[in-house]
């Protein structure tokens, strides 16, 4: 890792953050498995409805 990227590490201990963060994602389940489960879950819907869902979403501009 180049020098410039090492400097990014926070100077504080992580306890400052932990005090503020309520729940962290320290779950035992592997990220990849979690994503797979969600995709399995929604894929059947996606296959039939994705195009219609996307095409019917038409907005006017805002600020």
């Amino acid at each position, binding site marked *: 890792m180049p020098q410039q990227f090492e400097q990014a590490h*926070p100077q504080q201990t992580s306890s400052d953050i932990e005090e*503020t963060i309520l729940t962290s994602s320290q779950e035992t389940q*592997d*990220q990849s498995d979690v994503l797979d489960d*969600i*995709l399995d879950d929604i894929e059947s819907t996606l296959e039939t409805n994705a195009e219609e*869902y996307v095409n019917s979403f038409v907005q006017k501009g805002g600020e």
Partner: protein
Amino acid sequence: MTVRRVIGTETEYAVSLQGAGHYYNPVQLSFDVVSGAADDSSRTIRWDYRQEDPVNDARGTRLERAAARPDMLTDSPQLNITNVIAPNGGRVYVDHAHPEYSAPETVDPFDAVCYDHAGDLIMQKACEQAREQTGQPIALHRNNVDGKGSSWGTHENYMMLRSVPFSLVARLMTLHFVTRQIYVGSGRVGLGEHSETAGYQLSQRADYIQSKIGLQTTFDRPIINTRDESHSTSDYRRLHVIVGDANRMDVPQVLKLGTTSMLLWLLENADQADFDLETFLNDLELADPVAAMHTVSHDLSLAATLPLTHGGQTTAWLIQLKLRQAVYQVAAAVHGTDTTGEPAWPDKSTTSVMAMWGQALADVATIRHASDDERLGLSVEAGRIEWLLKWQLLEKLRRKTACDWAAPRLKAIDLAWAALDPASSVFTRLAARTERVHTAEDAQRAANNAPEATRAWLRANLVRRFAPDVAAVSWSRLTVRDRNAETADEPVGEFYGNADHNQTLNRHLFSLDIADPLAFNKTRCEQAFASCDNAADLLRSLAQGAPTDAPDAHMR
């Protein structure tokens, strides 16, 4: 040097009808949703659009009838409700073709995020009410693009000292807004305003930013918006930021508000710390900020170089590192440091934001040095960086189905990520994997109760207690009917051209200037609620006790 200041967010939601074959008019649907947010008592309250009086005027003046807007003289329900005062002191209204929620004024970025999420609950409830009232499958999305050319906004507002020259604000904020995308972007499928090119980028909003600075917000959108409508007193301006994404995750939102607030403090305190802002800004000045905005958003390698005006080049990550170091430098000069060299940050929110900023830059460095395969496994970082988490899900599906980035199913996931209804939201399924800064109960409480530290408390509680007597409300002024006025039965006549004659008996209106966002907080107003039994007496008593000094917007 603190991250605390008056902050408020505005979120425009996308409104649509679910299912095939629907033709819909988003303007009408927006009215339907806003109407769904109203209850019987708040239907009669107007939003006061009049130009505010010059600030620092005497507080608590009797409003001249000629100065009253005609529709403030009626207490009949509005036919087309365009404004609703939310129970928490925020505002739900129709803005162009979108229902919008403006959060009540808060004094801390963590609170601001909580009140922003409270808006999601308020708007989803309004949407469900509108579905019931209209029988139509209305749906809201919290995003910024439709992939077909339209974009709508998620705005941040910061109260800051007017004494800082705006040119310095513009130069520093340009650097920040172009480069903060690397950790606050919410991710988008498609490149270009019409998604002309297939692909994925860090930010929803970047491709719709086309100029460096300007007043406009709906076309040729600028990096720096110059709208100068302070909703405060003359010592302060409101920095209105339009470049941000609608995030679903907490950490990017805290960072967006927190780092920006810290940099505004840098501007306000640089002189005191003998910090050479001019040289700092000169050295980092981007040759083409608009192009850089797009480059940074499109650059998944996180290594793209950005040319500098005075020669050489840099990266978004390096600019962020230097911005953070500058804050450290000024804070150390102002506050001194502890034995570890850490500035003595004055409060917990500031300490947290500075640590989270450092963590964000560490996360981006980790992502930058990871291959795509490795990036798919970065679970802790994905709990803090929204564009990464969204990318992981999309990339997984892309590999699984061997599709390219133009595939409708990828666009559908991007869209469903933003669905506000928890039943159809893809993000909701992953929310437990992300780092949160408040609980669901906190957000629900914030949907029903105003922040206690600002005038939002008075606004919300005035409406809660005396809704039938509230004629009009705005950020900086409250107007109520004075039912005890001696000339109460003097007819208004045709003067106002108001056909609803019976409703417009001349009840005097009493108006309270609440331009100072911090003066009318719970501590100051609570006693008046206990001792007054009508709205006019309440405001009158608060007017008498109004402080005459300029507000201290900063939580020193």
